[in-house]
């Protein structure tokens, strides 16, 4: 409560809100005047009315649930495989040498370019979407963790080794603490990416249900206010889930000083 009161008194908050309000006002006026590009675009007020009706519909929340489930599944598998793999690559030079080129060959292919092949590969559409989400999360996490491993000062390893550390000690005392910030960065960035992927995959793979599907339905049906509601919902979903990851990361790496 006191935090809220402090927020309400700070000039920065009001200036930020003023910026957003100016944007909305501009949009309202531009859409109301039917400027050339915005001929089909509804005003913010119309979008708000649409949102007010959507929050009462079961379909809307079902879309959230279905997309969320897909994201969660693909993400958990991606992080669950990616983090140990990248850490193993950080621990063993041989393993790094054997698997890094493999990653480099596959990584530049954009996740969504995998969609058609995945549709053919996996028996169900659900598995297709989850596998694409997995790819997005996996590569992001692996690359971030590898970056973290590379940033470890080699002197730490040398010092530990000269004092007779076993590989096990190296892992627990040096590699894991040093890379945990990058693990969480990778996880948060990957989380943002998975929401992006799920939307596109749902639009491309023409699957029933999900926020991307809802948006595509709205597009086909010409309900532009609903398109914007979907866009905002997807943005919100991504924002909330990455914030959760950041919070988790902050809690688990308390030794890092945040500004």
């Amino acid at each position, binding site marked *: 409560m006191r935090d809220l009161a402090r927020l309400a008194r700070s000039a920065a908050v009001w200036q*930020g809100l003023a910026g957003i309000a100016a944007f909305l006002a501009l949009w309202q006026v531009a859409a109301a005047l039917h400027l050339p590009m915005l001929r089909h675009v509804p005003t913010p007020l119309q979008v708000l009315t649409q949102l007010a009706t959507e929050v009462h519909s079961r379909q809307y929340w079902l879309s959230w649930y279905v997309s969320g489930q897909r994201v969660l599944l693909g993400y958990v598998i991606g992080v669950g495989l990616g983090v140990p793999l990248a850490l193993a690559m950080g621990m063993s030079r041989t393993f790094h040498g054997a698997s890094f080129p493999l990653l480099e060959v596959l990584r*530049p292919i954009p996740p969504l370019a995998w969609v*058609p092949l995945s549709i053919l*590969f996996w028996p169900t559409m659900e598995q297709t979407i989850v596998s694409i989400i997995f790819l997005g999360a996996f590569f992001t996490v692996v690359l971030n963790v590898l970056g973290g491993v590379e940033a470890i000062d080699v002197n730490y390893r040398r010092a530990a080794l000269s004092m007779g550390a076993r590989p096990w000690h190296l892992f627990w005392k040096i590699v894991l603490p040093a890379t945990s910030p990058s693990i969480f960065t990778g996880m948060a960035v990957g989380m943002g990416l998975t929401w*992006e992927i799920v939307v596109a995959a749902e639009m491309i793979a023409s699957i029933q249900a999900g926020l991307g599907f809802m*948006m*595509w339905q709205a597009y086909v049906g010409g309900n532009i206010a609903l398109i914007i509601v*979907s866009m905002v919902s997807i943005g919100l979903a991504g924002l909330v889930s990455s914030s959760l990851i950041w919070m988790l990361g902050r809690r688990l790496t308390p030794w890092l000083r945040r500004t």
Partner: protein
Amino acid sequence: MLGFATVLGAWHLTTAVLRLPLFDKITPPVTVFREWFNRTPAFGVSVFTPVYYEHIAYSVYRAYTAFLLAVLLGVPIGLVMGWRERVYRFTFPLLETLRPIPPLAWVPLAILMLPGIEPPVIYVTFIAAFFATVLNTLLGVLSIDRSYFRAAECLGFSPRNVLVHVVVPGALPFIFTGLQIAMGLSWFALVAGEMIAGRRGLGYMIFDAYNMAQIPTIIMGMLTLGLLGYASSALVRRLGRALMAWRGV
């Protein structure tokens, strides 16, 4: 090289030799490469057909147009936002409100708002690259030690000189990190944009091949995209190194 060999080996093994249950619909590498380098390809696309280069040209044109637009707009905006605190305070919350909306969620709205086929696809790609560029440029300016600004003021620098000698060089490493991310995101968004809305380009080629069940062409498109994406990132990295000679390699 070893990585290449492993990928090809695993691919060949699963599709041609073992014929694992899930892999039965995927074509073995030999078939793909035979199609790719065939003078008379079975599905009409190979390195000897003009159609292939037309798709490539469209994708490259879109990706680079969007990327350049994002750089031309994003870098100055990011610099001003990081440099002028008042601008930062008024615009940063707005940026953070719009940024979480994924570029690909813009596709339907972009189709409705913008005329023709090219503008929506370029717009979506632009959005992807733009936010990454602005944010990284902004962070770059914020990362500059405040005493440089104070020193510049003591020495009587004009705002223009502060911009040229303090802000830009200080932010350059972050800008180039941002540009690399932006380039990757451009290709990422472009493919999806082309699949959903395009009439030409590699994303469309893949999707069209999928609709016609031409699996070698799908894989060909994916590999071409991988190569182009890789080459583009390498280009940005090299440019960054050339412009920041003081950092060494």
